[in-house]
């Protein structure tokens, strides 16, 4: 670290970070504050659209209407389902990758992480093609005789969940992988030498030590599912609305910006609350054993 006594050094960090700071104040904080304010305005077609008068109308509407309750509940349930599936699939996969070596490991990594670089729209399109009633999944299931009428995946919760797991599970793998990397490579041998079976080593030694990775991975997956837009919109269609698609419809469909803003603010607040409580929980639980 440089010495702080030098007066130049007291100004320099502020100078260096000032472009970023200006950018964030002008283009991040102000828009967010404007949205917050907008969410307290109301919308009246007769009075020419947005009315700049402070009121709680939008929040009252969202929080009391069972239509919105349903949407928030669906989003929450979807997030839980996707998160659980990502944990169940991503954790073992990360562990398997961790135990591989050489060329195969790099190839598998590429196959799992590569899709992260492909737009969500493209990945969702792939599932839409697979899901169609004439899609590959139905055709092959029909062909081997598992089913005799096409199963419906397009515009169903199941379809949305499958696609979202596909979109988000790489984050889970990455997160667990990172905590496996920190694990002492001899830790499993230590367990074995003390008489534990491979399964017990996994259950009682490996999993508890990578728990922070699993938990932070779930947090990422949960937050990203809760605010996912393109996938639920394409695969869920108009009927299976989630919070993000609802806000979109209010904004660009019915043009009720204040209501859309209120929904967005609620999503943000819910996100922040969940993330901070979850972090607190993790910290409390693991502060002693992990730094």
């Amino acid at each position, binding site marked *: *670290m*440089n010495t702080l006594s030098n007066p130049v*050094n*007291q100004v320099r*960090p*502020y100078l*260096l*970070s000032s*472009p*970023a700071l200006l*950018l*964030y104040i002008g*283009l*991040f904080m102000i*828009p*967010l504050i*404007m*949205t917050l304010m*907008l969410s307290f305005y109301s919308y009246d077609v007769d009075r020419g659209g947005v009315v700049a008068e402070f009121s709680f109308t939008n929040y009252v509407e969202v929080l009391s209407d069972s239509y919105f309750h349903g949407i928030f509940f669906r989003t929450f349930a979807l997030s839980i389902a996707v998160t659980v599936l990502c944990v169940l*699939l991503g954790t*073992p*996969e990360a562990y*398997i990758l961790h*135990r591989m070596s050489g060329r195969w490991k790099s190839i598998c*990594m590429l*196959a799992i*992480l*590569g*899709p992260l670089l*492909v*737009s969500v729209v*493209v*990945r969702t*399109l*792939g*599932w*839409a*093609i*697979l899901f169609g009633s*004439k899609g590959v999944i139905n055709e092959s299931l029909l062909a081997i005789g598992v089913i005799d009428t096409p199963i419906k995946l397009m515009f169903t919760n199941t379809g949305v969940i499958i*696609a979202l797991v*596909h979109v988000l*599970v790489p984050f889970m793998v*990455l997160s667990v992988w990172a905590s496996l990397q920190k694990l002492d490579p001899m830790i499993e041998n230590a367990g074995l030498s003390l008489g534990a079976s491979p399964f017990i080593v996994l259950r009682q030694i490996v999993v508890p030590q990578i728990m922070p990775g699993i938990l932070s*991975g779930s947090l990422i997956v949960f*937050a990203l599912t*809760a*605010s*996912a837009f*393109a996938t639920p919109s*394409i695969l869920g269609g108009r009927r299976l609305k989630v*919070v*993000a698609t609802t806000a979109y419809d209010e*904004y*660009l469909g019915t043009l009720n*910006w204040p209501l859309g*803003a209120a929904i*967005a*603010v609620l999503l*943000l607040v819910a996100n922040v609350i969940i993330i901070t409580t979850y972090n607190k929980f993790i910290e409390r639980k693991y502060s002693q054993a992990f730094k």
Partner: protein
Amino acid sequence: MNKNSPLALLFNIVFLTFMLAPLVIICLVAFTSNGYISLPTNGFSLRWFRAIFEDSQFVDAFYLSIKLGVVSATIAILIAVPAALAFARYDFKGRSVFMALFLSPMMVPHIVLGVAFLSFLTTIGWYGTFIGIVLSHVIIVMPYALRLVLSSVVGLDQRAEKAAVSLGASNWVVFRHVTLPMILPGVVGGWVLSFITSFDEVTMSVFVASPSTTTLPVKMYAHITETIDPLIASLSALMIFITMAVMFLLDRFYGLDKILVGKGK
């Protein structure tokens, strides 16, 4: 040496199939000669790839997305480098607050950012301008740029810089000839990740894109919600091929994992 059991390897195969299936199906369907979504059963055809280039809307959107990605990634890097130097080198009042602020767009759902930028840009009259959409993308990619640059600055050995200063080099010369070459991997990685993030972004862009500033993902999204045809499949396949090419180049010269760790939070 492979320490995985046969069951684990089976799981791995199923998992990889799951990860690749949607991408593979797109690439197959893209070569169909039929006018509807189907596997290329009667021969491979490039008809739908030709169709992309005849559709001026997609071509325009593609160029716009490239331009948008390049400009916003470049601006983000130019702002992120000095900020990263400040964070890594100085212990100043407000350091942790600044850092949290600069990384926070990652925590804000993109739909919220979209809503916020739409109101903001409309109010200041920049809705539908290129500069408007660029600025919104700069905010989105900044955290990624900052994190990758920061990781390379933090690992930097400052002795080389001190040596240069002791030899009488000016601040600029030190930065240009000593610091920059050393942090270049982080800067390049940050730029690439920023470009990709901007190029792929759809949720926020759906709000800020106007008919004259429609990005490729937004155009594709709009197209898919109307109809799913072989044209969109071949366009998607093309994007997959380009991504694969970029990926192999990156992996060759840089190490893909280094860039991708920046993507997870």
